[in-house]
């Protein structure tokens, strides 16, 4: 399992516990990071730049650090 996919799972967990609208939050994360969360799967190769962008997006949209 790639780190990117693991990050995606953590995000989905956070969304679930936060009670926020999942489609809206995922949309904002996707637009900010420049990637579709739906396209991240276990075999997606790790990309440090993509991971950093996604973490930054999470910080800006959900105000949490992963």
């Amino acid at each position, binding site marked *: 399992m790639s780190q990117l996919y693991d990050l995606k799972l953590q995000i989905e967990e956070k969304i679930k516990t936060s009670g926020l609208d*999942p489609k809206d939050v995922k*949309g904002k994360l996707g637009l900010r990071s420049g990637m579709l969360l739906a396209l991240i799967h276990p075999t997606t190769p790790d990309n440090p730049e993509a991971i950093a962008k996604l973490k930054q997006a999470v910080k800006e949209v959900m105000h949490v650090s992963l």
Partner: protein
Amino acid sequence: MKWNSIRTKVLAALLACLVVGVAGILMLMRYSFERNAQVLATESVNGAERLFSILEAREISKMTAVSDVLLTNPQIRDAFAAKDRERLSELTASLYPQLKTEGITNWMFHTPEPNMVVFLRLHNPSKFGDALNRFLDKEVSRTHALVSGNELAKAGFAVRMIRPFHDSKGEVTGYIEYGEELGQFIHAMKSQTGDDYGLLLSKKYVDREFWADSAAAWKRRDNWNDNPSFVVADKTSDSESIISFDGELAGVPASGMVLERYQKGDAIFVRGLFPIQDAAGTTVGAMFVVRDISSFYLAMRRTQTILIVTLVAVLAIGILLVLSLLTGLVFRRLERIIVVATRVVGGDYETEIRVSSDDEVGQFERLFEQFRRVFVDVLAHVPELQEKR
């Protein structure tokens, strides 16, 4: 509020319009007030000048009418023709107090040419035999017809009327003269208009000694040294400021001039003066006029306030209208597109963008909905998503 949003920029532009509009109206109102105040001030001076002329003409008519009556009295005619001073005085003396109550202060009989001396002075019977040699005397002698006008003499500045007196054969036996002090005009003018007036005489035409004697006789303060070039003959206000003037009376234009607008307490006044000429056309004095324009000023202020409040209200309503139109027609629909676009990226492939109108934003909504469908169709062919859908 986002400072770089269109809404903020539009609001800022509209508020700027509001400020500029109010400032513009204020400037216009100020200009209008200044102009109207100037017109009112000019009208006050011109009105006072007209009123003075009317009073002058009325008094000349009155003196002429009185002299007409005397001319038809055979006893007076014969007494004057016979140069019987005692008899003439006996016949006329009782009339003088009555005429004085009507404003006639001077009444004289003059002998004919060549001497043309004062034969009888009803207002000062003990003094006679002096030759006055004034402009009006020379004119009546030259024309043998009624002449009238203002004349500054030792006895003061008065409007006078002098005309020939004839005997039963129609020969000129002398002249009769009436005069009224101009100083009393300003009190009549004040009672009619409520404005304040001051009558000034140029020192060039007033005898210093006589002025001092006259002040003593009338128990008035000798004001000769109060001003360098003129003396105040009379005024309707105790205030000295109404007759403040630095220029030369001879330089005052015939139509008069406005000197200033000033505030005293809560009241606003305008002050001006117009020249007074003697019968020879020489400017020997001037009359000050002070008018209270507070009511006009307050009315202008009230109009100004109403205009500003109305303008601010209209512009505020305009701003609200423009902002609500922009919100309904543009901002809210753009926000809806953003929400749907965000949700599509988040995996909501069902929510559509509703095209609400065929306007510019509607065309964008249609375009974006078409784009959304293409995007969803593309995603539908991504293998990783097919099993999830």
